[in-house]
């Protein structure tokens, strides 16, 4: 099954995404810190899709994305930003950094499932 990792410093946000993805044919790993996720990726973990929050302490979503692109295994891995941020300039910055898409919280569960399925090309 494809591996999808979620990164969000909010425990409740991770709980919501877990409940949404429970019924999907994917393996999910969750991280409260982008630093921890990036360290595991540098250690050899190769996710098929990464979904990350933007505003996080220590390492924000863009810094995480830049870090991911430096690792050969995730240089081209699809990354979705899942955030409360709606500013167009941030979306443009994300696009320039190689983001796959932008999902605004609170997300519609059915639409998030569709977005994941679309990126992973699940039947």
């Amino acid at each position, binding site marked *: 099954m494809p591996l999808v990792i979620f990164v*969000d410093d*909010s*425990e*409740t*946000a991770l*709980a*919501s995404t877990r*409940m*949404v993805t*429970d019924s999907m044919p994917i393996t999910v790993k969750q991280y409260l810190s982008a630093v921890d996720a990036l360290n595991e990726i540098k250690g050899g973990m190769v996710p098929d899709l990464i979904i990350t929050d933007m*505003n996080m302490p220590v390492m924000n979503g863009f810094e995480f994305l830049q870090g991911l692109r430096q690792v050969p295994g995730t240089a081209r891995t699809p990354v979705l930003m899942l*955030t*409360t*941020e*709606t*500013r167009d300039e941030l*979306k443009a910055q*994300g*696009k320039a950094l190689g*983001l*796959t*898409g*932008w*999902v*605004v*919280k*609170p*997300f*519609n*569960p*059915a*639409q*998030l499932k569709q*977005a994941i399925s*679309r990126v992973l090309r699940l039947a």
Partner: protein
Amino acid sequence: MQFLNTLNGLLEHVKSVERETIGLTQEAQLRFVRFLDKNKLCADDETLEAMQYQDIIAQQLSATIEAIESAQEHMQYFMHAFSEDDAIAAQSIEKMHGKLANALEKAKDKHSAFSGKVNREDDDDGIEFF
């Protein structure tokens, strides 16, 4: 000067209440999630969407805490100048006014930026692929 000390104390109190509120909303949410897990219950889509409001509440309150801390920092500069020299104090109060106005604008921007889809009137589904 006394009024600034009192105002500073009031702001500390507001921050404390906001931090407590963030903690309480998080604990309430996590207990609800544990209840659902324990009883093998699934929330419907509408409930799952509403469950995300806690994250938005926490971010909004955290942003106002940051704004208060910024205002307090500017007030501290003024209080220091006031205690040193009257002429400097007169200049400082003008500067403080400008800094506080700036802190207020930043706080309003963050309120808008961290609201996500909440309070938006468009029917955009909130997902955009690049």
